[in-house]
């Protein structure tokens, strides 16, 4: 199971983590309740994803013990995700997020998720931070460089 690939973004990871922690809490509160009944009470968008993950991991929803272990496993994985912070100029659609996440998964690490912020002032490109390192590869920054060096006159 490639959880990072499924989640793609840090926001999704946080949402899933809250969902899983909430589920774990509900199950521990009333041990007589089955996982299925607790899930039926949930209306969170992460429910379908969670069920997919159970299915992919070949864990039966009726096996409370295995599900409980799986919940702990998910929380651990989410806590151990590496994160790439990106600042982009436009609000990214799902297609853009998938494209970027796939690039990261393929060319960097499968356990990396994206933390995306939007700043229209950067005009285009990205500002990227990873493991304490930072690069401003935005269009705004490139323009500033051109204007500061007066290269605009040569264009």
């Amino acid at each position, binding site marked *: 199971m490639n959880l990072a690939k499924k989640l793609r973004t840090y926001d999704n990871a946080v949402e899933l983590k809250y969902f899983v922690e909430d589920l774990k809490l509900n199950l521990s509160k009333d041990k007589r309740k089955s996982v299925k009944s607790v899930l039926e009470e949930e209306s969170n968008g992460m429910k379908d994803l969670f069920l997919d993950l159970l299915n992919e991991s070949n864990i039966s929803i009726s096996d409370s013990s295995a599900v409980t272990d799986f919940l702990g496993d998910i929380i651990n994985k989410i806590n151990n995700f590496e994160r790439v912070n990106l600042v982009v*100029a436009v609000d990214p659609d799902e297609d853009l997020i998938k494209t970027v996440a796939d*690039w990261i998964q393929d*060319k*960097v690490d499968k356990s990396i998720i994206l933390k995306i912020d939007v700043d229209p002032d950067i005009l*285009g490109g990205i500002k990227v931070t990873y493991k304490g390192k930072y690069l401003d590869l935005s*269009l705004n920054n490139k323009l500033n460089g051109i*204007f500061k060096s007066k290269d605009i006159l040569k264009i």
Partner: protein
Amino acid sequence: MEFLPADLVLNIVMLGLLFLILLGFVVLLTFIYKFLTNWLEYLQKEKTAGTEQIRHEAQQEAQNILESANKEATQIISDTGKKASDILEEMEGMSEESKQKLSDTLSKTSANLLKIYETNIKKQKSESLQALANLTENIDKSLSKEVGEFEKLLREETVESKEKIREKLLKKYEKLDNELQDYKSRRMKELDSSLYDILYNVTEEVLGKGLNMDEHRKLILESLDDAKKRDLFGNSG
């Protein structure tokens, strides 16, 4: 010449006497002149020295000179009369030829005297004219020199003033030129800055609104490739 006596000898004698009398007057006048000159000298001495003694001595001296001159004049006139008388006596014994010779001699002498007189007059005139010419020339030279010096002074002062004005103008010009260059430079920087601001804003506006989602995606992926090339992700992947 009708007022002259018909006798030639008498005429000559009269002429001689007249000549001697004139000579006596000349001597008398000379003494008077000398007296007056000495008198003036004594007066000057008196003026400078201011002593009564000198004046007295001067008066005494003048008196002596005057008396001496008087005596000499009297003596000359007396001698003249005597000589005239002697001549008259000699004349009476003279032949016609001798009388003629004497007459010629006197005429020659008179002519010589006249000639000397004329020569002296001419010489005096010439010297006066020369002196006048020299004086004119000196005045001319002096004036030329004065005018030359004045002209030189005027020229020097004019040139000096011109030079000072030129220097002042040059300094003023340099100052103005520097100020102008500073102003130009400042304005050019301001203009550059404004121009770049405008261009930047226009570019920002155009790019901000002009990129579609596909172009954004392309730019983002290019940036990620760039980040990887710059080793932002380290050895991962």
